[in-house]
């Protein structure tokens, strides 16, 4: 009687601790977008804007975006074919529908199957998360547009979009 009880307690303790650790790690990790990196992605994409994490859009969006770099939101952002291919591979492999990250999965789930958004700000997830932001805030000089994540999300470049790291500039 005594012995099975000890084993049961032990099993429970180990199980609970393991579960706690796992859920703790999972919880922390899920708040932060997966930190995948690629030197060409960083160098090419971040010369004009923040290097938006691949986990912010699904694979089909990245493929469409990378296929139209010569007309990239009104600008020519064309790349040599080898560089474009490497970046596309990196984006696809870590995309919102493939990264396994919780926030990424929610972004992907908010997009209708037939839709291929090119702007992160077009996704229902983004709109829902920013529905309290009045249009005049987006237009402030230090913000400019929804493309400027790190204007408010101070750790955006580290993939951290948590609410406690938001500071809206005046």
């Amino acid at each position, binding site marked *: 009687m005594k012995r099975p009880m000890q084993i049961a307690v032990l099993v429970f303790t180990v199980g609970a601790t393991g579960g706690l650790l796992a859920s703790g790690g999972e919880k922390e990790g899920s708040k932060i977008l997966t930190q995948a990196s690629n030197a060409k992605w960083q160098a090419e994409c*971040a*010369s*004009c*804007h*923040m290097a938006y994490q691949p986990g912010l859009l699904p694979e089909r969006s990245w493929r469409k975006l990378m296929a139209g770099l010569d007309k990239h*939101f*009104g*600008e*020519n*952002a*064309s*790349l040599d074919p080898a560089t474009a291919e490497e970046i596309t591979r990196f984006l696809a492999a870590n995309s919102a529908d493939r990264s396994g990250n919780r926030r990424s999965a929610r972004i992907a789930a908010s997009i209708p199957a037939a839709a291929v958004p090119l702007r992160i700000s077009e996704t229902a997830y983004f709109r829902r998360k920013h529905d309290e932001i009045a249009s005049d805030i987006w237009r402030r000089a230090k913000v*400019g*547009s929804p*493309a*400027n994540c790190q*204007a408010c999300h101070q750790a955006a470049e580290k993939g951290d979009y948590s609410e406690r790291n938001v500071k809206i500039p005046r």
Partner: protein
Amino acid sequence: MRKTSILFALPLWAGLSAAAAPEQILRDLEAEARRDSQTFTAFSAVRGEQFYRTERAGVDGGKISCASCHTADPRALGKTRAHKEILPLAPGANRERFTDPAKVDKWFRRNCNDVLGRACTAVEKGDFLAWLLSVK
């Protein structure tokens, strides 16, 4: 003598990439300009400045010039339309500018297309660089 020491010093700060001095890039553009035009004599910094400041019709209906993003002073920090800082364009203020021929080609290709709606000629590029080199 001075030229020699510059050439030897270059790889020290430019790393192992195919580094060149802006003056070398200017000489290459000059050779290209001579091939393109039999009447070409020399690049003009005055024409280069004018080119930099000339406003043209942008794709969105507004006016666009090199200065739209690089600001009126090419020694100053600029800003992309997506709000990212652009390091100074003038080599006098940013010694990494015009040292990597592939990068120079890439940005002329993109930005000429955006601002002029076509590729730039070697004369335009040379005038532009001649002016940027003259801005101290």
